[in-house]
């Protein structure tokens, strides 16, 4: 086990180093004044190696520069926008998993019958959805025609909630205002449409992966044995089969994180959701390279760390892998 952790830590470290090579390479194309914020201007190092060392020093000490258009510390700014994105991504992920796994199982159990065909073709529809258009359609229908969902943002402005954690669902509950519970429901209400839009593509993928994993597992000998032993149908599916189908699902969750983050760029723009994606796009429009650099580096390192964490988790889940060590 510890050997495995060590190995993963090494991979993590090497990936992060490669990442800094990459982002450092990008800074070479930045305008000179943005670039100098990430280097030691006083010493003005000339060789690329010296510049890289100076760059790494800045990154490690947390000095990621100041936004050119706002004059604020970009790393601090990142953490202001970050919780909103996390809240949205986690909600979308839960939504996609909680619908995708049962749908995938249902399809697998009815392989090649109509429920399976229906599920498989709907996943293709979901997978082909241009989400910027999908988001607009949902707003057009649910918010403007029916008026059942809010149009944008995280919370109605009538509620004054002090940001403690930055997670609206938690902050509303922590609030000592008389309307705290009401505000919590309002925050949930605001999450519905953006989460649906963001969850669309991952939902399609989780469903497909679950389906194919389950089909494989259901055809295996031990399931037949379990059936022969007379175990209940639900028990076989939910306890025995699902546990073994979990591994590919877990792997795909790791890969979907980057799809979700790609989605936040668009979803946050459509719903005026004050998260990292919107922050970065605004930075592109302002040509604010320092902010852009910080956003890319922070997001990418995060995605790498999540992937490593998923790797470790799948190791923990899979007894075969544990035995190998």
């Amino acid at each position: 086990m510890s050997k495995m952790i060590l190995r993963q830590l090494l991979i993590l470290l090497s990936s992060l180093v490669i990442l800094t090579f990459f982002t450092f390479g990008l800074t070479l194309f930045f305008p000179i004044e943005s670039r100098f914020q990430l280097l030691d201007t006083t010493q003005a190092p000339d060789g690329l190696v010296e510049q890289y060392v100076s760059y790494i020093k800045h990154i490690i000490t947390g000095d990621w520069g100041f936004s050119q258009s706002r004059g604020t510390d970009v790393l601090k700014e990142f953490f202001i926008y970050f919780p909103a994105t996390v809240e949205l991504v986690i909600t979308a992920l839960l939504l996609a998993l909680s619908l995708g796994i049962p749908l995938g199982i249902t399809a697998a159990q009815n392989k090649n019958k109509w429920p399976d065909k229906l599920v498989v073709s709907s996943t293709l529809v979901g997978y082909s959805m241009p989400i910027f258009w999908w988001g607009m359609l949902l707003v057009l229908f649910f918010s403007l025609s029916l008026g059942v969902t809010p149009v944008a943002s995280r919370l109605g402005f009538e509620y004054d909630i002090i940001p403690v954690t930055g997670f609206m669902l938690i902050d509303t509950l922590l609030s000592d205002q008389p309307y705290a519970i009401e505000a919590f429901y309002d925050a949930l209400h605001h999450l519905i449409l953006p989460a649906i839009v963001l969850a669309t593509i991952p939902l399609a993928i989780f469903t497909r992966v679950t389906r194919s994993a389950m089909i494989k597992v259901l055809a295996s000998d031990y399931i037949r044995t379990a059936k022969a032993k007379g175990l209940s149908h639900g028990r076989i599916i939910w306890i025995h089969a699902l546990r073994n189908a979990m591994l590919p699902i877990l792997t795909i969750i790791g890969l979907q994180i980057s799809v979700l983050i790609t989605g936040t760029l668009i979803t946050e723009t459509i719903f005026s959701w004050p998260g990292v994606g919107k922050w970065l796009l605004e930075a592109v429009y302002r040509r604010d390279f320092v902010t852009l650099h910080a956003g890319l580096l922070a997001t990418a390192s995060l995605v790498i760390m999540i992937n490593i964490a998923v790797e470790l988790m799948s190791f923990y889940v899979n007894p075969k892998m544990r035995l190998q060590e």
Partner: protein
Amino acid sequence: MRFLNIIVVISLISACQYQKKANVRDDVLVYCSEGSPQTFNPQLSTSGTTFDASSRTLYNRLVEFKPGSTLIEPALATHWTISADGKEYIFDLRTDVKFHTTANFKPTRPFNADDVLFSFERQWQKDHPFHNTSKLGYRYFESMGMGGLIESIEKISSHKIKFRLSRAESPFLASLAMDFASILSAEYAQQLAQQNKVEIIDSKPVGTGPFQLVRYQPDAYIRYKAHPDYWQGKQRLNNLVFAITPDPSLRFARLVAGECDVMANPLPVHITSAEQFQSARVISEAGLNIAYLSMNTTKPPFNNHLVRHAINHAINKNSIINAVYQKTATEAKNPIPPNMWAYNKSIKDFEFSPEKARKLLSEAGYANGFNMTISTMSAQRAYNPNAKKMAELIQQNLRDIGINVDIETYEYGAFLYKVRKGEHHSALLGWTGDNGDPDNFFTPLLSCAGTMTGTNSSFWCDPQFNQLIHQARSQTRVKSRTQLYQQAQRVFKQASPWVPIAHATQHLIINPRVKNFAIIPTGGVYFKDVYLENSEVLNDE
């Protein structure tokens, strides 16, 4: 697992069905604004978005514009005297003005001359301890030439202050009513210096204005509450929120859905479709603005006035007004709007005529046309709701006379940066007057000094024109100024460094429950004395 699903589904359904209680909403006015402010210190910015969020809500000035006009009225100064040579201004200050009490600051004294001194010296003196606290710089103060104009500022007594100018300048009083002349607290600055927290002076503001800042989440919202000790009495409106919504269609959608009460910069299509919705009411006011195509006269072929005349002939302003402004604007022929006293009505505009344009082009030696670039911005401004669309219409007009146009679109800040440096070939620009004086158009946009700072985007520097506007600035009599400006407009028309396109009518869309709200001709929104009718939000559908 199945239980988990059920819980998720139930909570989603309950969230869908849950209805808002109206009473909390009744006490909050939500303004859907177009962007995040750069800072809460108006001295550091030139952007209207920043002024809306700072000078117009949080601060006061010595003198201010009378709401809805460009007349000056007393504010923090009760009255003032101007010396006979026009160089000395003495202001008597109010004694009963209290600053905001915030989490960071509790004022111990009312407003006095030290605050005025601090607010101006910070911008003016390069060695002032607070001069360099922000990286943004005092662009408005500098571009107005205040540093050279002000000779001294002297505190005569605790509530009396004297400005001495290096020359007589008639627009000076109007300048003091402008946003950059807002008064900050000297006591707060001093306290921050002691606590070693000077950097928060511009982000955690303290002013004397009708509202005070409660909380700001960048790109999300700004929350204000009424200043309890406001010198004109506490506002009837208790809570004010700026919901930052850069996308205009989203702003309109939110207004229609009742999420906002006032919407910034509506598009013309929103104005025409607003009447279908009960929660939307359009209010309009002739704007103090101009939109124009500026041709960079330092770059060929725009150094040839025949080419500039040809382009003036080739552009169909009427179709622009229909398609871009949806008829909510008037055609422009002069560099200032018709609601300004110096406007020259007698000038004849170039009529729309592709034939004449082609003839002029061949006269200029460009019978086969040429290639040009129009730079535009993606942002939408009060004077131009859709610069991209305008550029496309012009592109087609010019194609008809053989000119091939490339359109480049930039974000607002990047666009201005490029234009200021003179990197553009031609650009779609505009201007909204900030103080109602014609000089506020002529000097920045067309003077030779403007070519140095880049606000004169055509880089057109004509000695005769420059002399005329310089004379007009130092005169005080409106009649003689008018004559000079009218002559200047003739010179302008002759040379035509621009194609003046349109004067946009200003529009805002508000919810009918918002009362006492007015559009200011100089642009921007003011929530002072605005209140909400105490009724439930009207719902559509």
